[in-house]
């Protein structure tokens, strides 16, 4: 919130509402909200942590609010980034101009695990590779928004954006009659529109779109079924699909139906045992060749993941300049690459002030938060860095903005980040909202749901 003199302008309406409602009542309502979440089953399984796999992500009832002006900036910046990332993907799977120009070293791309040589020369419809770009944004002062990382494969969490709003509207209808909040419930329609726009050129009429899930044991299965339901498309598992004559078919009670667009929530490695991991039990045999033949569109395109690789991240502002000829609206967080000798030395010397991450890691696992770590932990981590410096990057611990959050003893500021979901089809679209994650532990900077984070509704106020 920043200003100790009182809530920032966009929050005033809500501040008055909190005051009027009273903390006790709000605490009671929080329990109600949790009960609703449990009933509808929106829980989030966490890999590698043990404990309750159906743990609920705590929901905080105080919304995180963007003014219309703030949103204009965020929105323009996110769309710009999404366009640049897709241009980058097209380029590296074709002529590689950005490497020829000496902006990104060739080996960072061609040797990257997330780079798929098999995608060389493939022309995805509309030249779109990442159809849903989740951009993780933080704020460190009143002026700037910084991007922590991009998510170009299958960013999850959008169901929370929709559910959080629904719960808020259900529980506090009068709050929405006072504040002019932009709606987010258009997201499923916009997503469907974007997916339809990238149907194979050969597809005439309404494309058949399906959401491919690994199945009910996947931690995000709820989201898969929820989104498929809202879009009115089929939710399919690998066994429901097959490839024949180079086309993809879905088994239905009325016989096979050709599928034109697949919104897949299965990783590259697993989508086709004939093209990638031969031991994959989640794949559809021949899917990749059907895709390459232009008979089906996969969203996201195989190989899109390289654009969100942490080693590539530092070049995104350069991509904006190189491909779009624009200045980046959103800045990157300063990042040191341990692959570079000088950077690595700096990181090792300043471990206690830095956050160190694995280049290919995700979800907050395997990272070191310097200031919170013990001397021993830092020492052990330093050894890991020295053993494989290429695998690590480091960033300063940021003075992250806080947002008012409910605690047992009342309201207090907690660190937040924000993930909007940018849709890329023939057009680039961004629903005014996203997922605000909040570090519920006082002083904590880690907002990942797997590490004790919670979520909030996110409001974008109308003009």
């Amino acid at each position, binding site marked *: 919130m920043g200003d100790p003199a009182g809530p920032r302008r966009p929050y005033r309406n809500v501040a008055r509402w909190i005051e009027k409602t009273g903390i006790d009542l709000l605490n009671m309502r929080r329990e109600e909200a949790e009960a609703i979440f449990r009933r509808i089953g929106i829980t989030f399984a966490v890999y590698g942590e043990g404990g309750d796999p159906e743990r609920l992500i705590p929901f905080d009832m105080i919304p995180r609010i963007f003014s219309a002006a703030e949103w204009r900036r965020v929105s323009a910046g996110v769309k710009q980034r999404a366009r640049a990332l897709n241009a980058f993907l097209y380029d590296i799977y074709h002529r590689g101009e950005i490497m020829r120009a000496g902006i990104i070293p060739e080996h960072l791309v061609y040797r990257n695990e997330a*780079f798929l040589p098999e995608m*060389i*020369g493939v022309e995805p419809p509309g030249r779109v590779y990442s159809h849903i770009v989740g951009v993780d944004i933080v704020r460190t002062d009143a002026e700037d928004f910084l991007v922590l990382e991009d998510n170009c494969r299958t960013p999850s969490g959008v169901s929370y954006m929709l559910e959080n709003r629904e719960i808020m509207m259900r529980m506090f209808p009068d709050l929405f009659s006072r504040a002019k909040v932009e709606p987010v419930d258009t997201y499923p329609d916009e997503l469907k529109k974007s997916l339809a726009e990238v149907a194979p050129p050969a597809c005439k009429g309404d494309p058949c779109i399906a959401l491919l899930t690994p199945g009910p044991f996947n931690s995000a299965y709820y989201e898969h079924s929820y989104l498929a339901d809202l879009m009115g498309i089929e939710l399919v598992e690998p066994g429901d699909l097959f490839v024949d004559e*180079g086309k993809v078919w879905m088994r239905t009670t009325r016989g096979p139906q050709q599928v034109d667009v697949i919104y897949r929530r299965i990783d590259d490695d697993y989508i086709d045992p*004939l093209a990638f991991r031969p031991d994959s039990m989640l794949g559809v*045999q*021949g899917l990749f*060749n059907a895709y*390459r033949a232009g008979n089906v569109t996969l969203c996201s395109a195989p190989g899109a993941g390289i654009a969100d690789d942490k080693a590539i991240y530092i070049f995104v502002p350069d991509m904006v300049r190189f491909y779009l000829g624009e200045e980046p609206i959103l800045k990157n967080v300063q990042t040191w690459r341990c692959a570079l000798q000088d950077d690595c030395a700096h990181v090792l010397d300043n471990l206690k002030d830095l956050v160190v991450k694995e280049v290919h890691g995700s979800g907050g696992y395997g990272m070191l938060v310097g200031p919170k770590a013990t001397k021993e932990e830092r020492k052990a981590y330093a050894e890991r860095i020295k053993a494989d410096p290429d695998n690590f990057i480091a960033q300063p611990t940021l003075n992250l903005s806080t947002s008012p959050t409910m605690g047992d003893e009342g309201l207090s500021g907690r660190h937040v980040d924000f993930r909007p979901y940018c849709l890329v089809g023939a057009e680039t679209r961004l629903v005014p909202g996203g997922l605000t994650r909040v570090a519920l532990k006082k002083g904590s900077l880690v907002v990942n749901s797997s590490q004790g984070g919670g979520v909030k509704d996110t409001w974008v106020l109308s003009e």
Partner: protein
Amino acid sequence: MEHRIRHLSTYSYDPAALRVALRLKLFPVDHEGQQVESWKVTVNDEEVSPLVFSDLGDREALWSSEDALDQLTITAEGIVSTRETNGIVRGMPGFAPPGIYIRETELTEPDEAIRALMGEATGDDTLSRLHALMGLIHERVKYLTGSTSARTTAADALKDGKGVCQDHAQLFIAAARTAEVPARYVTGYLQMEEETEELLETHAWAEAHVDGIGWVGFDPSHNLCPTERYVRLCSGLDAFGASPIRGNVLGETKESLEVSVAIGQSQQ
């Protein structure tokens, strides 16, 4: 030289496989040293045509069974004419940048011994270093049929000092890449000099990208650059990537495979 080729692969399943899906890279493509005169691929007598051309340089086809199968016969046959190019491969379709062939794979991950081997391969320029490397591999890794498997890595082959053409090619690739020389694995056919017709499996060798020349073939098993006796079928980052046949079998079944390649000079 004109080659008449018949490449037969017979898979048997006991009990029958419920469903078999195949990806085939069994279609040679033209380049300056090679021209495909006629070619036909069948699976259980059903003709299969390529579905896609990959810019990595291969044409690929899919095939799948709708019914249970106890036997699968894949035949690739035709006539390919070749001419001597001193191992140089030019005029291949596809525009894959050579830079991607610096990429390591599980089978070609270099260890200290491989780096040292490349260090020993000295010469005035890249080309002569690669020739030296070919000679070193030929000398250090004895050709011994059946001594390794499809999972043997380049590092293991060097350590054990024995292998087959697959191991030679992978070792060459792994070593060349440590010197930042792009290298790829090639699967193909070889007409032996001694006999007019020889029954054998497919052959394998390596290609390295040399600045100013382009792709050049190296066959460490025979310590020579491919001649007009070599017919190029497909390529990849390693032996696995250059498998002409990849299959996915549904059902609890035991698979056995018999391969034969007949290659002879066609009647002129």
